[in-house]
Structure formats: C-alpha cells, structure tokens
C-alpha cells in the first residue's frame, strides 16, 4: 500500500510515449472533429466562418448537425448499422468458436501452427481485393450461381449481390480472423484438467462446455465480440461494394458527407456520435467486468 504512490510517480515518465501517441493520434483529432461538428457547412463546402461567436452559440446553430442526425432517415441507417454489426458478431462467434476449439483443443500439436497460419493467410491480400472477389462469387453470373445452376439446384440465377445478405457475407468473412484469434488464445490457455474434472464430477459434454469451457474462455469471447462489433459498426467498404446503394450503413453515410456531399460538419457530428457510442459500449463492458470481478481486457 505504502509503495503505491511512489510507483505511480515513477511510472509518469515511462508512460510519456503512450500519452504522446494517444494524444497526437487520438485525442487531438477527436477534439478537432468535435470542434468541426459544431460548425456549419460553407456555401461551397468546407466550413462557414463564424463571425460572432456569442451570437452563434446563442442561436443554437452549433447543435444543428446533431439535431439533423436524429432525423428518421439517419436513425434508420444507424439502427441498420447496429443490427448488421450485431448479426455479424453473432455469426462470427458461431463460426469461430468451433474453428478455434478445433485448432486449440482437438488438433494435434504439429498441426496447430499450420491451421493458425491458414486463418491469417488472407491478410496477405488486400481487404479491398478480397471484397472484390466476393463480387465475382456472388453476382448473377458469378461462381456461386454458376455452380448452383450447373448442378441443377436452381434454374434462374439468384439475386445475391447488392443485397443485405451480400453485405453480411462480406462483413462476416472480413471479421472472422479477429474472432478466431482471441478465441484461440483463450482456448489454448484452458487447463484441460478442468474439463476432465468437470466430466469426472458428472457433467456430460454439453454441461462441461456450458459450465466450464464458456465461462473460462469468456475473456476471449468478449475480446472477439468487441474486436468484431466495433469495426463492423463503422464499415463502409463492404457495404459500398457488395450492398450497392440499397444497404447504406452509417460508415457509408459518414464517408459520403466528407467525399460526396462536402459537408464535413455533419460528417464530423455523425462520426463523433459513432465514436461516443463505441466508447460508451466499452465503458459498459469495463464496468460489467469490474462488477463481476473479471479482468478488464481493453
């Protein structure tokens, strides 16, 4: 207890690089973005100059972008983004758990690095190119339709590309490694004798899984969920390429404001709202973990 303050003081210079990096690349941009979000769009794009700050504040115009973001059309996009991200996360978890379990627990030792390597191999190719590949697979005359037609399963090509389904496929595909890797890490650490003990005490396969494996790999599950949910929420490349104009997500909306609509203030407001939502989510997670006595991972 007594050594605590001294240790904290000693840590200050050591933490300096961390604070510089966080400040320069996270806090400063965030503050700039917040500032821009209170401005108005100029007539030809860019920012409209504020001549009388007091009058501007009094008029309430600085909250205009946030007020606009609450319009039903934007709320709908926000809601769609949330459930697409949620669905992506659930699907990733459902697919990744058996895969990670297979690699970490069931596979012979000498196979592990190879299998893990296969999970990571897609990273060698640009994400953009891999998403393009999905266009070739999913389009009407693409690989999937051609094989299904060839096998006689279907008689007319399915409408797959430019649907929410295509976006979901792209999102799940892209995020899968980020779920598998943390799950693998926590499953790898799992003490096998605990599984033996649970079975010895009378738990069948399902009981062992539910009462021992899942609770003990919860840090990996939560890390995977956070690592998948947050990027999915802000995704715009996948929805842009595979969803066409019909499946606009909040990421596309923000990108449009900067690149197409030339409205950085509104884009900043939306981006800041997204960031705030994510931070609140992380805070809730940290509070939950502290309350349950778990380790805060992020």
């Amino acid at each position, binding site marked *: 207890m007594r050594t605590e303050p001294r240790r904290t003081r000693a840590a200050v210079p050591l933490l300096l690089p961390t604070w510089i990096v966080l400040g320069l690349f996270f806090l400063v941009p965030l503050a700039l973005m917040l500032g821009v979000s209170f401005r108005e769009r100029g007539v030809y794009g860019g920012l409209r100059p504020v001549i009388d700050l007091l009058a501007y504040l009094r008029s309430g115009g600085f909250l205009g972008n946030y007020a606009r973001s609450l319009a039903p059309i934007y709320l709908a996009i926000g809601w769609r983004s949330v459930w697409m991200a949620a669905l992506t996360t659930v699907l990733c978890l459902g697919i990744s758990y058996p895969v990670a379990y297979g690699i970490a627990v069931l596979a012979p030792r000498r196979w592990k690095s190879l299998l893990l390597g296969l999970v990571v191999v897609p990273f060698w190719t640009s994400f953009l190119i891999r998403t393009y590949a999905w266009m070739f697979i999913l389009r009407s005359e693409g690989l999937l339709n051609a094989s299904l037609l060839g096998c006689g399963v279907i008689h007319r090509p399915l409408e797959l590309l430019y649907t929410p389904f295509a976006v979901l496929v792209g999102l799940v595909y892209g995020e899968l490694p980020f779920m598998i890797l943390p799950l693998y890490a926590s499953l790898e650490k799992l*003490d096998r*004798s*605990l599984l*033996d*003990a*649970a*079975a*010895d*005490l*009378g*738990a*069948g396969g399902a*009981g062992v899984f539910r*009462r*021992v494996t899942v*609770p*003990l790999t919860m840090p990996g599950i939560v890390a995977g969920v956070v690592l998948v949910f947050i990027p999915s929420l802000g995704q715009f490349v996948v929805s842009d390429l595979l969803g066409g104009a019909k499946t606009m997500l909040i990421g596309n909306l923000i990108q449009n404001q900067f690149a197409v609509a030339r409205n950085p203030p509104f884009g900043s407001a939306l981006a800041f709202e997204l960031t705030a939502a994510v931070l609140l989510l992380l805070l809730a997670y940290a509070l939950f973990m502290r309350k349950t006595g778990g380790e805060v991972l992020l």
Partner: protein
Amino acid sequence: MTPPSAPHSVEIRGISKRFGEVTAVDGVSLAIGHGELFALLGPSGCGKTTLLRLIAGLEAPSAGTIVIDGADVTRTPPHLRPVNMVFQQYALFPHLSVEENVAFGLRYKGLPRRAWAAKVAEALALVRLDGFERRRPDELSGGQRQRVALARALVLEPKVLLLDEPLGALDQKLRKEVQVELKTLQRTLGISFVFVTHDQEEALALSDRMAVMSRGRVAQIGKPAEIFERPETELVAEFMGAANFFTAEAREAGPGLLGLRLPSSATLTVPAPGPPLGPFQPGDRVRFIVRPEKLALRAAPPEKGFAAVPVTVEDRVYQGASTLWLVRGPGGERFTVCGPGDPPAAANGARAFLCWDPEHTVIVR
C-alpha cells in the same frame, strides 16, 4: 452402509492403453477390495496415472475390462462412473467459489436444489473448511485447495475415490499432516481410495496394499511390509531403496535349503525359495539383496552361521539417529550399511567384515 454386493471394489482385468506407438499400460490385472487404501507406486512414466485415468474413464482402454462394484464400466463415460477423482493440481474451477466448486457435481445427482446447501456444508465440515464457502480457489493455500478438491469429490459419495499424487503439490511439513488426515478420512468413510504416488515412503505409510508399477506393468502387489521386506525383483528392490545387491552362485545344501557362494568365497545357507523364484540348480547365478539396516560391520570374521564379506570402509555419513557407512567389496561392489553407533572397525579406509544374519537374505529376480 449396505453390505458390498461385489467381491471387489475395483477389478481390472488385462487392461492395456496405447498412445500411438507408446504402450502406457500393458496388460495390468489387479483387484482392489472394499474399503481398501490402495497405492499405485512407480517412477514417472510407469503408467500409474494412466491406470488411474482409465479407472476414472478419462482414458478409454485399448484392451481389457474394468469392473467397479460388480458393474462392467469399461465403456461407460467418466460422468456416469461411480468414482471421483482428486486431480494432481486439484483442478479447481477458478471462476467458481469454494461452495460452487463443491456443489458442481450435485446437479447431476438428481438431488433437489434445496438439498445442496446442506450437502456442501457437510462436505466442507468433513475437510474442516467451513467458513471458506465464499473464497475463490486463488485465495486458498495449497493445503486448503486440496481439501476443497477432496470435498468436491466426496460430496458425490463415490464408491471409489481416486487420488493423483495427492501430496505431490504440498510442502514437506504439510505432507505428514495430510497423510494422517487422509488415512483418518478413509477410515471414517469406509470407501476405497486408490492413489498414485512416486514416493515409496508415502505409499508405505499410507496404503493397506500397493502395486509397484514399471514400464506399464505391475511388478509386485502386496502389503507395504511385504514389498519392503521381500521385494521379488531387482527393480522393486531398487525402487524401495534397498541399495545392497549381491551376486552369488547356487550350491547344493540339503533338502529345503539353498547354499550361496559369494565371489569372495564366503558361503551362506538360506531356505530354498519357492516359485516364482526357484528352484535353483547348482551353479546358477543368484541375485539377492540385504537391506542396509540388516548389515553390520565387524573387525573380525563373525561366528559361524553369519554371512561375511571382507570390505573396505570408504566413507561415513552421520545422520543423527543413525550412521551410514559406504563400503566397497572385494570385486569393487558398493554397499551401504546403516547402523546406530560407530564401531571401532568402521573408520575410513579400515578393513572390515560385512555381516548379516542369513535370514535377512532376500533373493530377487
């Protein structure tokens, strides 16, 4: 307690377990009685833990049959076997409290939930851990963790309790205490305990009977005193800490007797061993042991009837209650003598005679 319905608590018939090329357990057969405290003793890698895991059902045998309390459980999965195990590192669930750990298996016993608390309290009282219900395993000492592991297994009222190196993770002082506690507990409960250990003293002190294992096979089964006093093989003798091996030549010595002639031309006569050791033909090579505490050093050749080998004293190790002498025989063989005093003959470099009563000669394979 209902009278036992089967002749044995655990009966193992011709059990083998192969892991790929490696045969961990090789055709082991043994029977463990009701209420018996049985030790599986052997060096690491001898297959004793695998055998324990086979009884628990955590490994499937490659061949053979396992019968527990009269029921063939060879193909029964672990969660349906009437045995419970105390794991080597205790394998307590780190995410559960002591109470929850102990209650873990009760769910599968078909007991109503309201009966659990009483059962848990009873089990914790049995291992003297009442008051620790809400602690987490990482807040307990090694000895306390072991008691939680015991309570967690015993609360399910197993017919056999399996213990994998139960004292292995405890420090020396605690070991002696826990040893006594385990024995008392086993007597109180009256169920059979099967425990694995690599420590012969532990096996001797704790068990009613023991099996010495080596390379996947049972080398000898018997009461601790039998195995200690009368090891049947060199391997068992060596493992039980009998340091003195002698080689002799068999000679004719009359009916029921066997004459032994040592390289030093000393001779002795012992009762002829029956099967599986004997009979020996004159001229056969005979290996035997004499325990260090049965040997004595004398300055002069002893009276008739005692065996004697001329030796040179090489070193002396004072151990408080006793003294060890390291001596070398005429052929360069090394022997250890353990005695209470410090006879004049036994100074370093002195020539002396190694003597023993022929009845302490133990012939081994």
